[in-house]
């Protein structure tokens, strides 16, 4: 490649970053399409997670491991994703904030929340040193998920709020974060605030980001269950969200679980079973934790023929990480001191024996 070619690529890279930072994903994607067929050495591809080239061809080992890690993470192949992120950290140099973030997210999804928190804080430290606001936003959001799942809702809400404020104006992630903030308020018992904020998000995103509206709707259905509010459920059942939008399997599944809950309240286990079947198919293998949960609900309330555990082949996830993360920065130090413990979801493993598997709903950010 001649020097002009290099220049051209860097210029495109620069533009991709600018578009992403301005929240203009569409323009960033248009530019990315021009890069197809070239090895993705460009950070923009990792940002958008919309790559089509082969990760194995990336010449830089650190970035290659990171790309492979994210590929596997988004395929719910958590164990291999963790392996790749650890490899990236071991050869780590300039992309450590990315690899630590990846490992933190994998550990979070595996329910290894204590370790997840530590790696996310390390990522945050690297991100802060590099003035990488986008990564910082992701770290705070991911920490929010960890604190949410461990029941530390107040600090979770602080993290989501911080994530939202660090994001550039116009970012499409804002809708999601507003939903997260509303959901977390609900978990804190501020139901009126949560309900109002979710309706606001639902209608606010309806035209610009209908996928997000689906998530708001699913969270409102969740609230109807948490509050045992049949009036809210009846109203939600009359809502017709836009049908032609992408990535709505997750909210659709939770809505089906909510419907199943209300059918069970009316002792209609047949209808509940149908809803749970639908939910399981929406979750599919892409969401193994959620699928495990729904299978458990089916096993408990509908038919004993379902085996919840067949959907979690990665349940044995106690691999050892032989490297230690950096200690957190001063402004994040208190986050490292909040008491949490590793409590793999699966203690979900003994869901079959728990009093009410619906209670496990609280772990899901919906």
């Amino acid at each position: 490649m001649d020097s002009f070619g290099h220049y051209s690529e860097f210029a495109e890279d620069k533009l991709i970053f600018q578009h992403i930072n301005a929240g203009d994903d569409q323009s960033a994607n248009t530019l990315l399409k021009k890069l197809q067929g070239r090895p993705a050495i460009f950070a923009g591809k990792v940002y958008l997670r919309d790559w089509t080239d082969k990760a194995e061809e990336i010449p830089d080992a650190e970035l290659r491991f990171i790309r492979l890690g994210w590929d596997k993470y988004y395929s719910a192949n958590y164990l291999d994703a963790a392996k790749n992120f650890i490899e990236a950290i071991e050869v780590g140099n300039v992309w450590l904030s990315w690899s630590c973030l990846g490992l933190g997210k994998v550990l979070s999804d595996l329910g290894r929340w204590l370790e997840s928190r530590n790696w996310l804080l390390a990522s945050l430290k690297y991100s802060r040193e590099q003035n990488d606001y986008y990564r910082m936003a992701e770290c705070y959001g991911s920490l929010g998920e960890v604190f949410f799942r461990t029941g530390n809702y107040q600090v979770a809400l602080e993290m989501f709020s911080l994530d939202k404020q660090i994001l550039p104006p116009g970012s499409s992630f804002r809708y999601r974060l507003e939903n997260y903030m509303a959901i977390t308020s609900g978990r804190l018992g501020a139901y009126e605030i949560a309900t109002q904020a979710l309706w606001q998000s639902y209608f606010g995103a309806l035209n610009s980001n209908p996928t997000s509206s689906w998530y708001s709707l699913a969270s409102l259905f969740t609230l109807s269950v948490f509050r045992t509010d049949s009036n809210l459920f009846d109203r939600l059942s009359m809502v017709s969200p836009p049908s032609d939008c992408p990535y709505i399997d997750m909210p659709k599944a939770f809505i089906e679980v909510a419907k199943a809950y209300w059918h069970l309240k009316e002792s209609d286990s047949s209808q509940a079973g149908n809803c749970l079947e639908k939910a399981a198919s929406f979750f599919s293998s892409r969401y193994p934790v959620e699928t495990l949960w729904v299978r458990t609900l089916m096993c408990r309330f509908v038919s004993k023929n379902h085996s919840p555990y067949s959907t979690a082949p990665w349940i044995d996830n106690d691999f050892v990480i032989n490297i230690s993360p950096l200690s957190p920065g001063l402004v994040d130090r208190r986050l490292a001191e909040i008491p949490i413990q590793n409590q793999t979801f699966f203690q979900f493993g003994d869901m079959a024996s728990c009093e009410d598997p619906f209670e496990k709903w609280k772990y899901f950010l919906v």
Partner: protein
Amino acid sequence: MVNLGLIGLGSQGLEHLEASAFSKKAKITMVCDSNPNTLIKVKEARPDILTFSSIEEMLPNKGALNGLVLSLPHHQYGPIWAAIESFHLPVLKEKPLGRNLAEAMQFFSIFSKPGVFLKTAIQRRYHPSYSFLANRIKSGGEPSRIMEVMATLHLGKKDNHSGWRGDPIKSGGGALLDCGYHLVDLVTSFTGQMELISANLWCDGKPATNQMIEDQATLYAKAGNCWIFIEIRKDGEMKNGNIQKKEEIYLRTTDGEYKADRTGVWLDGKRLMNCDKGWIDTMPKQLDEFADDIENKRVDYFAIWEQTPVMRVIESAYALARESFPTGVVNNG
């Protein structure tokens, strides 16, 4: 020795009265409060002090005064401000400068006239250990560069919502406006003007809407490339069944990590100074400085402007925190 009149004998006002006994340059010679029982108690303890039940009663005696100290509930300043102006005396007002920036500017505009001035009582930054730390950082050939700040203030109080402080209109706010004012001012004295990134307000563990008085606030901010975290709580962490007070500031700098609280200053865990009676000294010192200003006719016009960044941060924090949760009152569904 300058003679001061104290208006308002709530808990803060009584602290000023107590402090004046230790002041080398200022003496409180008159007090004013609408509560007759409080006046009787003061009279019994300090028979040398003249007591008045209203500002109008006190006004004819202004010739015997050199300055006023105001320590009233936040909402009571507006109605009496014209009367205060008629004293035509320098004023030391208990913080905050106003319930919001607009009110603060309104008060300040009156005291921009020649011959009078307005100061606000901000104790924290005058505390010996914090003053020591400020000097330490600024001294030397090249001042330390501050990269990160973490500041915490837990008042250790159980009760949050009582009296006028429980009314959002009268108080103008809760933990953030009252204790946060001190902490934001203290941090600003080290870092300079901060830019708010995120603010969360809490009331009984739930997000505080604009109808609530927050008992807890957390702020993330930046000043240049310095990251700042501030936590304020009316209560505190529980230990052995008791609510713990806490007040400390950490600074990560090019020198290392400083810690300061009311008992001293440390660098990377090594004590640099010890401060046993620090807090007792601070309020008399503040009165001494006020007396100095009066005696030397030193009108520090900028002292008030210096606080507008604090007011701005507080106001932004309220706006930012409530942007997400403007109200909690809706019908279910």
